[in-house]
């Protein structure tokens, strides 16, 4: 059927739905729903790791293969450094920029190496906002409790307390650098309500929050003359052979040469894993989200945490085909957008946590109440025109310009037509285990941002990631810089790699897979 004909049911049922309220699920019902439908509970997608710091623990097959994968580097090569730094930051997203800026400001010599251009990252795409408890009726404690509840009570309390308490001063730092957060008429920060949060707490820059923050941070990195190595992907860390990280080997993607960097501390800020397309899911992530940092840290001996749980964002675009996987911001639901099945019914409280909402969409589709596209995809409606009706004409256009533009390019006016959505692979809930200074179990190896784990428990709350990046990027940067003065550069060896290879060999033949992946293999083999 024509898409417009199918959309009619959304228009026809809108008035009736507006009168309805949909309660949040009780904890018991929630668990039941998630266990039945959430991809995290699909046992066949998982396998235990055979060796390494997390031996015996389960993760998805796609990641397990890479974690156990082999390095592209020969461990006997000469390690003569091309560059030397107090702090080497790997990754040019939000966490990497925050780390580099703070380390530099504290007096360290910083090198920032990144796989694509500075800022090409997941951070630049964040639309929904950043959670900071600034409203008078809100508090860091409430922020803590909301996050804990969203994370299924598995969040690391120490990390979480640090994040919520440092949120307000991070917001101030960004404002002083010129980030233009939306304001109320009285000049105070405007706060929006996000899924799973009990109080409005999202700071936004219309629906360009990540872009605005990244434009400013990138500009600042350049203004401070921090040494940049763009199109340089880290492929192996270096250690002294005794549990301390001392640098990294990068691969220059322009000329395929290896670049050795000696550093007193290394901060890994390589972001997420969406481009592994776990369980075949499309993804909202950037081109370089291939979990490289996890592989590097795992090989040198850092333990990972919560690597069995991933976030499938409830609203990834399903139609048009060109936008498949692209994020439809949660902001639409925050502002009252309904989720509607093929029968014109709502089926979940749209502001419940992401795992609950995603599970319920999967349920609707598996039970035959989804809408299918000819390319074999299935989804449910997100009633975007409802926003203009609730809050006045022009609301969608005004609050979601990025999304309007995205769909407009394909002839879809989202203020008049609902959009078709299905969960998309969005975020890695876990990552490398860190302490409150962002340091891993390997000395002088720090991990900040999406690549780290523990803070978000089993499910990250909307808007907490941007805050995580800024807070732990800062802590990693400051701690690493503070150490540099009283420290000598350690030896550069690949002993850990030799040990890792020996271990791999004991567990039977190597899979032949080389990691990190660096970029997904999308190029069609022609001929």
């Amino acid at each position: 059927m024509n898409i417009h004909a199918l959309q009619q049911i959304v228009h026809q049922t809108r008035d009736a739905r507006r009168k309805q309220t949909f309660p949040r699920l009780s904890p018991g019902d929630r668990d039941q729903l998630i266990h039945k439908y959430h991809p995290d509970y699909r046992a066949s997608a998982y396998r235990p790791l055979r060796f390494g710091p997390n031996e015996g623990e389960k993760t998805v097959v796609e990641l397990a293969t890479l974690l156990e994968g082999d390095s592209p580097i020969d461990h006997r090569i000469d390690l003569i450094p091309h560059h030397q730094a107090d702090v080497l930051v790997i990754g040019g997203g939000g966490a990497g920029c925050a780390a580099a800026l703070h380390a530099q400001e504290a007096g360290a010599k910083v090198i920032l190496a990144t796989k694509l251009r500075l800022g090409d990252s997941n951070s630049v795409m964040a639309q929904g906002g950043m959670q900071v408890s600034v409203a008078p009726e809100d508090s860091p404690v409430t922020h803590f409790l909301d996050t804990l509840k969203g994370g299924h009570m598995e969040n690391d309390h120490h990390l979480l307390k640090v994040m919520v308490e440092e949120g307000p001063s991070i917001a101030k730092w960004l404002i002083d650098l010129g980030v233009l957060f939306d304001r109320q008429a009285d000049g105070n920060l405007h706060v929006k309500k996000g899924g799973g949060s009990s109080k409005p707490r999202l700071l936004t820059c219309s629906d360009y929050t990540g872009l605005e923050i990244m434009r400013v941070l990138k500009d600042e990195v350049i203004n401070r003359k921090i040494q940049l190595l763009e199109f340089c992907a880290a492929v192996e860390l270096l250690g002294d052979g005794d549990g301390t990280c001392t640098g990294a080997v990068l691969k220059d993607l322009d000329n395929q040469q290896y670049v050795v960097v000696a550093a007193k501390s290394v901060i890994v800020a390589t972001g997420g894993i969406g481009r592994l397309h776990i369980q075949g899911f499309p993804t909202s992530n950037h081109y370089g989200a291939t979990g490289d940092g996890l592989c590097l840290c795992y090989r040198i001996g850092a333990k990972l945490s919560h690597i069995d749980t991933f976030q499938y964002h409830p609203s990834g675009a399903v139609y048009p085909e060109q936008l498949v996987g692209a994020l439809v911001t949660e902001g639409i639901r925050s502002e009252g957008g309904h989720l509607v099945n093929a029968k014109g019914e709502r089926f979940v409280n749209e502001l419940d946590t992401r795992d609950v909402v995603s599970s319920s969409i999967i349920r609707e589709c598996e039970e035959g109440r989804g809408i299918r596209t000819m390319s074999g995809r299935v989804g449910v409606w997100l009633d975007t025109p409802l926003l203009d009706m609730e809050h006045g004409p022009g609301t969608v256009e005004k609050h979601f310009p990025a999304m309007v533009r995205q769909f407009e390019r394909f002839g879809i006016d989202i203020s008049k037509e609902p959009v078709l959505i299905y969960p998309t692979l969005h975020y890695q809930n876990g990552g490398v285990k860190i302490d409150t200074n962002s340091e891993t179990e390997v000395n002088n190896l720090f991990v900040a941002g999406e690549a780290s784990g523990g803070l978000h428990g089993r499910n990250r709350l909307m808007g907490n990631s941007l805050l995580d990046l800024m807070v732990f990027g800062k802590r990693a940067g400051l701690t690493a810089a503070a150490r540099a003065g009283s420290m000598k550069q350690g030896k550069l060896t690949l002993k850990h790699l030799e040990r890792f290879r020996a271990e791999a060999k004991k567990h039977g033949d190597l899979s032949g897979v080389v990691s990190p992946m660096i970029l997904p293999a999308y190029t069609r083999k022609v001929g």
Partner: protein
Amino acid sequence: MTQNDDNLIDQPEVLKPRMVTIEISGKQYTVPEGITVIKAMWYAGQEVVRGVGCLGGFCGACATYYRTKDDPKVKTCLACQTAVQDGMSFTMMPPFPARKAIYDIRTLQDPKQDLFNLYPEAPLCRNCNACTEACPQKIDVREGVWKAVFGDFQSVSDMFMDCVMCGMCTPVCIADIAPNLVALYVSRAQGAHFTEKPAGLETRIKEIKEGRFDDEWNRILSMNGQELTELCAKVK
């Protein structure tokens, strides 16, 4: 999966993709109609490293020039957000060596005057409008440059919130202005110098520093798992 066929969107072009002929950097390829420009490059067997970033229309890495069949007009687009059509011809834009001014935004004394020291070319705009026509985000770039020069920093920061820094407005400028970099400076100055500091934020920072929440923290952090779960369940 039980599915009612009534709920099926017709998309014949997807089911049986029509193949179309396009030109990538002057070379012909046959690719399925309607896929994005970037996907067309992958389909044609090309490795793309420079030229892809977010794949979501936000980073500006994929700035591309294209022309459609029989139309002399060369247009601009973001390759990750544009579908290919028959007869289309495109080339990715190489990085352009525009000059970015270096400044410390926090210590500027007179940001509106400083604009002319940092970007002395900004007032030399000759009104050709090429920048506006080049912008894939449909920003009125020319107007923005004039507003910057006239000191209307507020309007510039509003207008350029959509700017993905693709840089397509710079190579076309006959006055050697990099409008996006001018706008970035202006927007940052607007945020750092001409926007009221939010009083509520300062209050909250002070409250945290002075330990206003310490009792609550102590109570919560001494709870056992069960108590904490019950408390969380009550937060509404």
